[in-house]
């Protein structure tokens, strides 16, 4: 999986690159419009992570270039602008998703995964983890071939965890991924625990191992050890 990160802020760029490299992606970097333009003209990428505000140009023009070349690459726009109009414009121009700064790295990688999945496998891809098989586009979860009935929230939680095996996911990022803006209505994230408990129980009843670990004070982790 080859990903181009277009981001002018060096520290953020390296963070993104490091995080995604650990996810197993091949990362290329572009620090400005000119570099990014050259790269998308020369090479093919599976996905382009696009910052809109660049020192020497507007990222939306790169998006236009990609679309004009009918590039197969997915585009995830990352912008400091979160005005509704910007989002609508970005998506209308053909971006696959839009994420406003600041964001959780885990959220970004989950969305990236979703884009690549949609683009490359027309939805016919399944996620494997130990005894678990998930067909994201049918919304189906199997444990040792047996279907498990999960609620929407439990399913979202599981998918988010599966996108980041071995990573510590903070409660904040989980809450925001699953509950969106509504997450700030809560004064504690205890409700995540309730859903995770139900999820674990349902999976274990079908014979799956308990892979969801609580990392004290920080969040949760999907791990085999």
């Amino acid at each position, binding site marked *: 999986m080859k990903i181009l990160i277009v981001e002018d802020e060096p520290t953020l760029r390296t963070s993104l690159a490091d995080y995604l490299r650990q996810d197993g992606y091949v990362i290329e970097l572009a620090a400005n419009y000119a570099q990014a333009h050259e790269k998308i003209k020369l090479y093919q990428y599976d996905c382009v992570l696009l910052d809109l505000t660049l020192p020497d140009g507007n990222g939306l023009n790169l998006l236009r270039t990609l679309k004009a070349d009918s590039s197969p690459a997915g585009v995830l726009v990352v912008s400091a602008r979160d005005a509704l109009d910007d989002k609508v414009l970005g998506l209308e121009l053909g971006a696959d998703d839009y994420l406003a700064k*600041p964001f959780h790295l885990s959220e970004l990688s989950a969305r990236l995964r979703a884009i690549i999945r949609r683009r490359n496998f027309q939805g016919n891809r399944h996620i494997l983890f130990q005894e678990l098989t998930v067909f994201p586009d049918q919304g189906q979860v199997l444990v040792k071939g047996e279907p498990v009935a999960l609620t929407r929230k439990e399913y979202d939680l599981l998918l988010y965890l599966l996108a980041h095996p071995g990573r510590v996911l903070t409660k904040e990022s989980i809450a925001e991924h699953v509950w969106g803006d509504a997450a700030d209505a809560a004064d504690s994230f205890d409700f995540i625990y309730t*859903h995770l408990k139900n999820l674990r129980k349902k999976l274990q009843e079908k014979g799956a191992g308990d892979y969801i670990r609580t990392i004290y004070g920080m969040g949760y982790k999907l791990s085999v050890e």
Partner: protein
Amino acid sequence: MKLLAATNRYYLLLAGLLFTIGSVLLYVGVLWALREEVEERLFQQREYLTRAVQRTGKLPNTPFEGRTSLSATPQPVGLRDVLLLEPLENELEPYRQLTFVLPLEGRPQWVSLSKSLLETKDVRRLILQLLLGVLGSLLGGMVVLNRWLARRLWAPFERTLHQLQGYDVRHHQVLHLPDTRIEEFTQLNRALTSMSQRVANDYTMLKEFTENAAHETRTPLAIMQAKLEQLLQLPDLPPAAAPLISDLYTATQRLTRLHQSLTLLSKIENRQFIAAEPIRLEEVLREKLHQLEDFIQAKRLRLEVSLTPVPALPLHPALVDSLVSNLLHNAIRHNHEGGLLRVLLTATELEITNTGPALPAKEQPAQFFERFRKHNMASDSPGLGLSIVQRIGELYGFDIHYAYAPEQALHTLRVVF
């Protein structure tokens, strides 16, 4: 009242007053002059008769215009007004009479000369008619002239006014007001044009500033958050570091939320939300309540919902979302375990009631809308939710009321459309 009507009123008042005084003076003056004339003629006749009597000893036969009568019995001497019978028309008519004594054939005779005042009556009528006619046509003419002038001369003003009424700084437009023949209007137009240019510039600058500020703070926040997340992933992180990182992480989250709220507030205040589409409030509420299910259940809140379908209101979707979210989040966050959350939507208002911490008696409801004021000092929220609610209310002309019932510690926020 229109400016024209107001000035006309004063003009007409003054003209009417001057004309009345003038008419009265003229009337009295003409009347006096006519009487003088009649009296002078009577005196001339007396003089003539006296001389004739001195010369000939008897009254001459010359018939005077008017009437002459002789009387042997004493009559009051001098001028007076009398009414005499006009034989032809058989009615009394006003006369001016001069009576004097003439020695005729050795005996004093009282001679009365009378002259009709009928002519003066005619003159009087003529004067009145003329005056009224002139006055009426003058005043009428003034009104018509003013109307016409107003239409002609005030036309540029009306055009300016029309443009101003349609002026909206959000559209980045600059007024283009042409110079006119009237100097004052030209000055007005120039002043307005340059003002609108300044306003448009300021507005654009302010907007750019907000956007830049948002951009410049978002990126460092994103960096902080990303680095902290990376730090969390380190395999040999000492256990003591985890809570520290976690606290830092929570702090950046709070900063992010604060930043979002402030950006939203400034955008509302800059009126950057123009686009409106018909929004069905009961649908928004239903959807939000569905999203918040987990949080309501987590606190085991008693939910009472009554949503009457309301005609769609033309609102900005993001703002409605923010309004409803803030009200509901507020009611959930400041609620206690097993408390009440009541959502009531009628055709005229949205009412959200929640149980919550008891208020000290001295707290003023208005203070809740102040920025950074919190119901609960221990809470994580920056206290901007109600400010946002209020700004959105102001933008759309909704009245927002806060009420508190101390017995059950019920807090009620009402949005009246």
